[in-house]
């Protein structure tokens, strides 16, 4: 059982899946904005971003540091925090790869949506452990309400 829980509305979860479908067979990516208080973390906004890996967009994604700074500013402007990142795995499971692990930091929520033959399938969230050796699963709790922003 995961100690971490990420709340997300059905509407925003649907937007992540739709982004993965839109860019299939390439990987999509984006920033996750939200709030955390007393360990409860909730997604309240998304910022779809361009995948800057033009050389291999089917199996890689990259968000440049300038785009990261834009996402941080967008979060601040909305009185939110940049709490994580989402991306898709075309025709592959919604599990982080070794490449994902090498390029991650703890604390962020990493949502991965699997898109199989153009259709969205599983969507999971992950948190890198402090020792960088592995990820822990973060339970996704679906909420009915619409995003507040």
């Amino acid at each position: 059982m995961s100690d971490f829980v990420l709340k997300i509305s059905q509407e925003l979860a649907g937007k992540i899946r739709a982004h993965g479908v839109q860019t299939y067979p390439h990987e999509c990516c984006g920033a996750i904005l939200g709030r955390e208080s007393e360990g409860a973390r909730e997604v309240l906004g998304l910022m779809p971003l361009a995948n800057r890996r033009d050389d291999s967009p089917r199996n890689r994604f990259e968000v440049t540091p300038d785009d990261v700074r834009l996402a941080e500013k967008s979060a601040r402007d909305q009185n939110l925090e940049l709490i994580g990142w989402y991306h898709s795995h075309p025709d592959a499971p919604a599990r982080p790869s070794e490449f994902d692990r090498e390029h991650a930091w703890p604390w962020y929520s990493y949502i991965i949506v699997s898109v199989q033959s153009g259709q969205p399938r599983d969507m999971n969230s992950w948190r890198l452990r402090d020792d960088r050796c592995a990820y822990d699963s973060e339970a996704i709790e679906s909420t009915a309400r619409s995003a507040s922003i």
Partner: protein
Amino acid sequence: MAVKVIIPTPLRAYADKQESVQLQASNVGEAMQALTARFKELKKHLYSDDGRLRSFVNVYVNDEDIRYMQKDQTPLREGDTVSIVPSIAGGLQQ
């Protein structure tokens, strides 16, 4: 000279939950060394085992990326702000 280093939110847990710290350093390399000497748990998230800055970790002085300046030899002036900004990367293993 005194400079401010902004700690990115994900790494504040390894820096006594501080948003920023004041350090004495004359260039970026010194600032990063002073930072990781003060907060040892930060080091593994910024540097790989071979001692190099991780490929997805970027450093800015004020609004300039040090890759386009003098990298870790980029000089610092009194009051400069050093920011640590990740690029976000990942994807399938293939």
